[in-house]
């Protein structure tokens, strides 16, 4: 249960599949246009419940509560051996030195 005043993320559907623009490709037309935004919760709400939030610019918007205290978890990814090898090979090509 998220509490009133908590920083949360909400989700809503902007356009249903049948409402998508005519120029949209077939695969995109079969799915809704979705929106996510964040704000301070207006009232205690469970995850998955209908929530109203006030965003950082003061807009009051509603949607389904998806995350409490949302945070970023993007990263530098996995080790990509090809990138390291590309750099090392180019370094040796320019400055010399044999392969290890």
């Amino acid at each position, binding site marked *: 249960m998220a509490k009133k005043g908590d920083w949360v993320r909400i989700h809503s559907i*902007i*356009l249903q599949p049948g*409402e*998508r*623009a005519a*120029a*949209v*490709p077939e*695969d*995109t037309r*079969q*799915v*809704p*246009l*979705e*929106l*996510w*935004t*964040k704000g301070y919760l207006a009232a205690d709400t469970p995850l998955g419940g209908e929530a109203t939030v006030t*965003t*950082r*610019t*003061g*807009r009051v918007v509603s949607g389904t509560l998806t995350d409490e205290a949302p945070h*970023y978890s*993007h*990263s*530098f*990814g*996995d*080790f*990509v051996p*090809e*990138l390291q*090898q*590309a*750099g*090392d*090979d*180019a*370094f040796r*090509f*320019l400055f010399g030195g044999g392969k290890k």
Partner: protein
Amino acid sequence: MKMDNSFSAVMARKPEIIRNAVGVDYSKFESGSIAFDYEAMMASTGYSLEDVIEIQRGFSIGNTPLIELKNITSLVRKLSKTGYGARIFVKDEAANPSGSFKVRRAATSIHHAKRMGYPGAISATSGNYGAAVASCCAKSGLPCIVVQECYDSRGVGQPEIIEKARKCEALGAEVVQLSVGPELFYTVLRMLEDTGYFNASLYTAFGIAGIETLGWEIAKQCRLEIGREPDVVVCTNAGGGNLTGTARGLQKANCVPQIVAASVNLKGLHMASDTQFNKKSFTTGHTGFGMPFSTWPDRSDVPRSAARPLRYMDRYVTVSQGEVFYTTELLARLEGIERGPAGNTSLAAAISIAQELPEDQIVVVQETEYTGAGKHGSAQLSFARQNGIRVSFGDPKDETAGESIVLPAHPSLLHAVDVDLDHMRRSLITHAASTVEHAPTAEDFAFLAMETKSNEAFVRGTLR
């Protein structure tokens, strides 16, 4: 009375919403036919180049270093025939407050929005421009909303775009994220109407005037620091504003290098496709924007785009995704400069182009961008692998966008591929002619020659 907010009703209100949100009446530039007065539109900002320089100084924007890439030049010369291999310089635009050249584009808009009393600004962008607008709004004390296309229908987001969302939030913006689709614009129109905020569009004259300082600085720095005019300036090309503004700034400094556009080749991928959205490893600087926005600039969010790259382009080349990731590695490993991949699109092209030119010539790569989690070769190639893309060494010409990423097995395999520029020019001319019922006027022929950096005979030949 409650406003009708259906898709069709909002789109029908677009001209009025945009007029209010940009404060420009575009009808006064129109001829009633194909032609419109581009230079009058550019001048309508009321800000001269000197004014823009002053505005940007207030935001601590610009005067970024022009760095000679001596080791990459040495590498180029090892690959070139004797006496060839031009000197390569890069304008380190990552040194700007928001981490890219895009903040030049935002500064004039936000300065103007503040001056005109708008209560805030909205920007529709998944790119570095969001952070640029957020940065200028933070400094100006204005609230800011950035609207991004970010996720596919599985809820999987491009790591590069997620990082940009983080940066926008770090600079104080409200970030609204959407799933794939051009109806993003519908959402933006509704927000503009609801908030009364300024539309910090990428494509107004305010934005393009801001980039002119970049071209101006390149001319000035080449003269002062190198003692030679640049022979070639390479610009990463997507929506066309980067190239347009840079070329205009060079012209204002009476500097006329060859202007080369460079885009990442994403041929075959549809930009509005939900299933293909995460099959690409570049979210900007690619042909998916570069081609359509060059051949028809007025597809943007304002009635007349100030970004009209075919007016200034002398050559257009593409490079592969693998070549740009590889080049990003070269910049880090040979020059000790770690920057974001997408901004190195023009550097990848420059390494190829410099091999065609004598040693005394100068090639300027006019941008870099910041790097970080998500916006990094390892993040983007890992993501590609997770989405079924094959990553390997080989010859980049064997890369197929959406299926494979081929890192050059040797630096000699870096090769910029020329696009048929006349074909693009003809495409623009034919499309323009199709927008009116009557035959083009004499004014239209002259306009289309300017639009395509060609001549009236070429325009007439195309329409014959």
